């Protein structure tokens, strides 16, 4: 009899398992494939590892500007991939060690709910089945690429993101359906590998969830690299041919066009992994394809919790692990605070990087409150100039009356690290005043954040 059974070994699941174990519970962790989930096996980590190769290639290309004599002879695809695999393996080993160290019982198999306090586990290799008895259950099965019949992936000509990280060679050309985070990260990677890249986005701008100014700046910068971006492109179908794939679409002007590429990446969103769990029988309700939960991560069934991607957007690893803590502390009867979705940082590792937290200017303005905005460009930031990487800016949105930090939006080098200062500031309910008055070291990119905060009150001395 376990105190807690966690279904799914991604960042939500393993965090829940380890935390519960630390609180003295007897924990089972069930994973059908490999520990780490999409994050470690096909998402965050492999993408970031591959994109680092792209970044280094950029540095080598520009080495002459730094007085470094080097020549760019291209990226060796297989060495890039094996380096990525090493990173993944190392993190896998780390997780396996933590499973052992935390005395978590690891079950290799596909789980389903089998009545009150019971989880059935079916091993996918030897087909053996067993039933685990448990007091509480956390479902952390994650998500998968959204399935549309017309663009069903075959892993060769039509791909999902998990195929990208397992490619054997770089395609000479790629069409990307969807200009969201996966689309622009893949575009960045493929372009650095020398592929010709076309992004087809149905919305009026790429990265539709980011602030408008960020979207426009990113589009400009990606286009500078030679990436073709079509917005308001309505894709009708993808014709697979011997040589590749032909994607037919209607452009923003209403003209029918087509693009030929070696392959098509379908990156139009993801959906919760809810199939086969036996949710309905167990009384676990769903909504818009995700498991319905309350602020304590409880589902509609007693003693069953859901966290991470399967419990709804935003689909982010760190959101899953934050929810894991809430769920486990709730189960343990401890005081806990719900995860505030508006205080979760969003990081995209395209080049230039994009990072944001909180409301966009349009969202903040729509809330019927008085806002003020501050901006600061990396063009006048010493550290950015030292790095010859002065693209981008920081934009901050605050409440005019209370100085509440409503949102921060960044584009440029290392902004995925920089956003964390804002996450902590917003969690602690610091105001513009604290960002303005805290001493920021020189020379750092964080000075641009302080100046953006000062600029919101017209007080920047560097502009």
């Amino acid at each position, binding site marked *: 009899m376990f105190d807690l059974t966690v279904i799914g070994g991604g960042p939500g699941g393993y965090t829940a398992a380890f935390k519960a174990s630390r609180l003295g519970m007897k924990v089972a962790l069930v994973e059908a494939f490999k520990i780490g989930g999409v994050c470690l096996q096909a998402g965050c980590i492999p993408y970031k590892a591959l994109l680092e190769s792209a970044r280094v290639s950029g540095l080598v290309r520009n080495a002459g500007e730094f007085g470094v004599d080097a020549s760019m002879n291209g990226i060796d695809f297989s060495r890039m991939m094996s380096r990525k695999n090493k990173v993944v393996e190392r993190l896998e080993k780390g997780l396996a060690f933590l499973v052992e160290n935390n005395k978590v019982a690891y079950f290799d198999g596909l789980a389903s709910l089998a009545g009150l306090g019971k989880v059935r586990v079916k091993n996918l290799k030897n087909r053996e089945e067993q039933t685990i008895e448990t007091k509480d259950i956390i479902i952390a099965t994650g998500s998968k690429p959204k399935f549309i019949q017309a663009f069903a992936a075959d892993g060769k000509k039509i791909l999902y993101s998990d195929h990208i990280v397992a490619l054997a060679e770089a395609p000479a050309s790629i069409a990307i359906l969807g200009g969201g985070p996966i689309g622009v990260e893949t575009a960045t990677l493929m372009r650095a590998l020398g592929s010709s890249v076309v992004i087809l986005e149905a919305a009026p701008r790429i990265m539709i969830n980011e602030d408008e100014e960020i979207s426009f700046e990113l589009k400009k910068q990606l286009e500078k690299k030679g990436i073709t971006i079509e917005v308001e492109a309505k894709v009708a179908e993808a014709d697979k041919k011997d040589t590749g794939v032909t994607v037919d679409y209607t452009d923003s002007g209403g003209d029918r066009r087509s693009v030929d590429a070696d392959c098509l990446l379908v990156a139009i969103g993801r959906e919760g992994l809810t199939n086969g769990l036996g949710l309905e029988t167990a009384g676990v309700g769903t909504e818009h394809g995700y498991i319905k939960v309350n602020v304590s991560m409880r589902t509609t069934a007693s003693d069953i919790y859901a966290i991470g991607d399967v419990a709804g957007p935003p689909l982010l690893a760190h959101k899953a692990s934050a929810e894991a803590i809430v769920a486990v502390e709730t189960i343990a009867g401890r005081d806990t*605070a719900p995860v505030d979705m508006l205080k979760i940082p969003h990081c995209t590792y395209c080049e230039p990087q994009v990072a944001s937290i909180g409301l966009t200017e349009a969202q903040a303005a729509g809330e019927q409150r008085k806002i003020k905005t501050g901006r600061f460009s990396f063009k006048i930031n010493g550290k950015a100039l030292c790095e010859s990487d002065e693209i981008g800016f920081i934009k901050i949105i605050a409440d005019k*009356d*209370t*100085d*509440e930090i409503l949102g921060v939006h960044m584009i440029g080098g290392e902004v995925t690290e920089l956003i964390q200062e804002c996450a902590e500031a917003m969690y*602690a*309910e*610091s*105001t513009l*005043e*604290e960002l303005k008055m805290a001493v920021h070291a020189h020379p750092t990119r964080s000075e641009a954040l302080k100046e953006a905060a000062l600029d919101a009150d017209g007080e920047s001395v560097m502009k």
Partner: protein
Amino acid sequence: MTDIIMPKLSDTMEEGKVLKWLKAVGDEVKKGEKIVEIETDKADMEVEAFDSGILGKIVVKEGETAPVGSAIAMLGEVEEVKEVEEVKEVEEVKEIKEVKEVKEVKEAGRPGQVKASPLAKNVAARLGVDIAGIAGTGPGGRITKEDVEAVVKAGPAVGKPVKGGDIEEMSAMRKAIAKTVTKSKTEIPHFYLTVAVEMDKAAAFKEEERKRGREDVKITYTHIITRAVVETIKTHPIVNSFYIDGRIVRNKNINIGILVAIEGGILIPVIKECERLSLKQVAKISNDVVQRARSGRLSAGELTGGTFTISNVGMLDVEHFQAIIDPPQSAILAVGSIKKRPVVDESGGIKAALVMNMTLSIDHRVLDGEPAARFLNEIRDRLMEPEGLA
């Protein structure tokens, strides 16, 4: 340096509001000199200095409230005044130490030492919320923006005005009235008896007494009714008692409270030891306290100690009404207007007579219907034959 403390100016006073400082810091103050105006639950009063000296420091500013017994100012000798600032600093250091200890036991801090996020402080300041009283739900019990907004959202307990309305703070007197009548109506099981009294003889008696008396003592119906009540209480002493915690407390003296309407509320000045007073003495004392009640110059002692209350709204054309007993008293007499009304006389004919209705409110825990009715009838009889009331 001696403290000037918030005096207890009435039995029920728990705190007082400084309305006006009549002396400024550095002013010389003589013993017995009026130094400050205080608003209590009963009345606004001027407070005198108990010692002479120099007003060294004002602790409670105008408009602020302080509990009874707390220092509201400091009185020093001339040389001492300069030390005041230092003294203050020492005290503040002490206070900070105390606050630190309080924090350690995770109790709510004091204003200025409250554990709240910068944003929560900004929002509270903007919305005019006192952050000190809010329970924090953030990390380590910290007050968050949400906590402040929740308090504002909950709103004042009395509810919100309809569109276009305002919320207004009540004066100390209105609060005291609200507290007293609520206590009375929720704790005392009232019942009511009404009688009609023919007042022609009382009217004639009043005119006679007026003619006979000195011109400066004006005799009114209230004085005559007071006398009738006092004489009747002598034969029904139970009415003059208090009900306190399941026991009857019998009062030796008959102290009659006369309800006086004043600007913004009511006051009940008390005429003490009425059993020893003649009509003229009642009239003289009554006229004096009522007049001073209206000009806000009563002492605390004159507003306390009542054993029975009379509320006469006869001048306002009211047929009859039921008054609320002033706890811990057992009864109150509500007197309506005196009017010419048709009355059936002994021969069966109709005559015009001056008629007054009066209603007795009684605490049923103390007195039942029958003795209460006899008490009320006896008052009526005395008013109808008023000669003995002089």
